[in-house]
């Protein structure tokens, strides 16, 4: 192995430490309370994971959270970028994939499906 190859292995292997390294650019959070799961959050989560992994997005983490209280709009998906949180409601598999491609990768939030955008202060 040459020193350059060592660098290549490092870059490739870094992806495996993505969750542990803490330097995540975007976090996609799926509401996985009882109502979320009943409305199909499991499938949404799977679709998100598939899409993120197919595109090898090493700086994106997909995680889950509990009930947010907005049962009527479940499944709810939040996109956390720095201080800004974008909340999508009534997400299905197709929208989940669009969120990854259009919002996370290309930086164009899907305006007509957003229910809230908030800034986290401090």
């Amino acid at each position, binding site marked *: *192995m*040459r*020193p350059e190859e*060592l660098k290549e*292995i*490092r870059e*490739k*292997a*870094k992806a*495996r*430490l993505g*969750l*542990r390294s*803490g330097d*995540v650019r975007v*976090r996609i*959070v*799926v*509401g*996985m*309370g*009882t109502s979320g*799961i009943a409305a199909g959050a499991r499938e949404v*989560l*799977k679709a998100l*994971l*598939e899409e*993120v*992994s197919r595109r090898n997005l090493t700086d994106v*983490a*997909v*995680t*889950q*959270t*509990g009930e947010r209280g907005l049962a009527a709009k479940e499944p709810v998906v939040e996109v956390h970028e720095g201080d800004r949180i974008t909340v999508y409601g009534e997400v299905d598999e197709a929208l989940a994939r669009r969120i990854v491609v259009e919002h996370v990768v290309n930086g164009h939030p899907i305006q007509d499906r957003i229910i809230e955008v908030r800034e986290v202060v401090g």
Partner: protein
Amino acid sequence: MSRIEVLLCAGTACLSSGAREVKAALLEALAEEGLTGEVRIVETGCMGPCELGPIMLVYPEGIYYIRVKPADVREIVREHFLKGRPVRRLLWAGELPESKEIPFFSRQLKVVLANCGRIDPEDIEEYIAVGGYEALSRVLTEMSPEDVIEEIKRSGLRGRGGAGFPTGLKWELVRMAEGSPKYIICNADEGDPGAFMDRAILEGDPHAVLEGMAIAAYAVGAQHGYIYVRAEYPLAVQRLETAISQARRYGLLGEGILETDFSFDVEIRVGAGAFVCGEETALIASIEGRRGEPRPRPPYPARSGPFGKPTLINNVETFANVRHIVVRGADWFSSIGTEKSKGTKVFALAGQVKNTGLVEVPMGITLRELVYDIGGGAPNGKKIKAVQIGGPSGGCLPESLFHLPVDYEALTEHGAIMGSGGIIVLDESACMVNVAKFFLEFTSEESCGKCTPCRVGTKIMLGILERIARGEGTEEDLVRLEELGHMIRDASLCGLGQTAPNPVLSSLRYFRDEFLAHIRDKRCPAGVCPDLIHYVVVPELCRACDRCRQACPTGAAQGTPGNPPYRIELSACINCGACFDACPFGAIERRPGRKER
């Protein structure tokens, strides 16, 4: 892709508290919930807080579950992994803090231990991902052997095995020594009771040690290395074997490393666990296949090691520091610590302290910070009275000296040593005569027998201590102990004998009162020495439950059920403490002082 990573501590401590069973339960629960592909389990090396094991660190949140039992796992999977609600009752301190905010971690500085508990030690690519073998690559392509030695010298790194010899200087001596081939030895014969730093590094980050050895080999001009590790560390041996074979496969050990003309390979030598084999000349004898006995120095191993060849011997933790110095620079390293002690030190914290386990702190931190801020103080509200630092070669330092910094010179000056990093915290329930006796029992058993002062002298000292513990000592005995201690120290060949009297001498220096209480008053103030205590029933607390009478092997505990109080007939009592352990009401008290016969 996984959305959750579960880092499961698979250090020896967590394995023995049931980490394997937890993993099995986890796999089963994940399969049940259909989460198998979404959750990745990584077995890591020691995370540090061994007291709290089995430990599970869950990412991306970075939260710790502690004392996890297989029965808890399903709840974690269903509530947390599926629904995103962490199981509070299993969290560290019931909170959801970042690990940085847990005082046990926030006061530490993890350099050598940074990968322990973070990466999978059996996967070389994870090591490479966190910058592994970058230092070796840089050394081989950009630095001359002299540059490397200069960098290590400038860093101020000193031997972490205990004696604190400047590492760069040692490397230079081996480089300049005439003879070929030259050898590298990693001393992993960790033998102090209660010390397990080296084991944790070998188990948690074996490649860091291999990389350090390879860099050293390049610097001194060696091609062959030995790791001398004890057979009592089967997991460390197994993970080292895995690491060595992976490194060979990736061309990071063996012929033409990283396609340069530098070749280096490593062989494991498993020792039988004799304490004396941690001494370098005894270790060399053992590697050569001879009986592990020390020989006089000079010649030092730098000139004449195994098979008479120039050899560099460093400790596990020393080697593990090397890659960080190369990558981050000597200036960075020497900015940490005190004037003469640079970098960090790993300690195994044990004894009467809340957070027992493995910690890494910057040199210069005070003993007080180590014991109270990181260790959390005594677990039962008792008063801490001393730390035993440096194991059987070290000494006891009283609470009044807790302002001392962790620094080679400061500790030595006060009768202890840095040692390899074992720290045993002693509270008021510890008897210093008994502690001194414990360590001397250890060294007298481990003495190889070559030098009479060590072989016979430690036995005589032990006999005197036993006499004092029985209440049959005289004040002259204390003078005798000091005389013998100095003689053994001066007349023994190797470090074992030269330091064996330290625990006794330092206890006499700081805790003479306790020795005198045993001798003059025939009482053991801490209530430990069985001949110098007695048991009594506290009448107000006794409920006449009869448990003490049933537990007593000699019929000394007497009374009638339902008719308190019971009493202990001291003439029949053998001070075994069975009644004390059996009483559910705390009605039996252990008091210092010999019972009246």
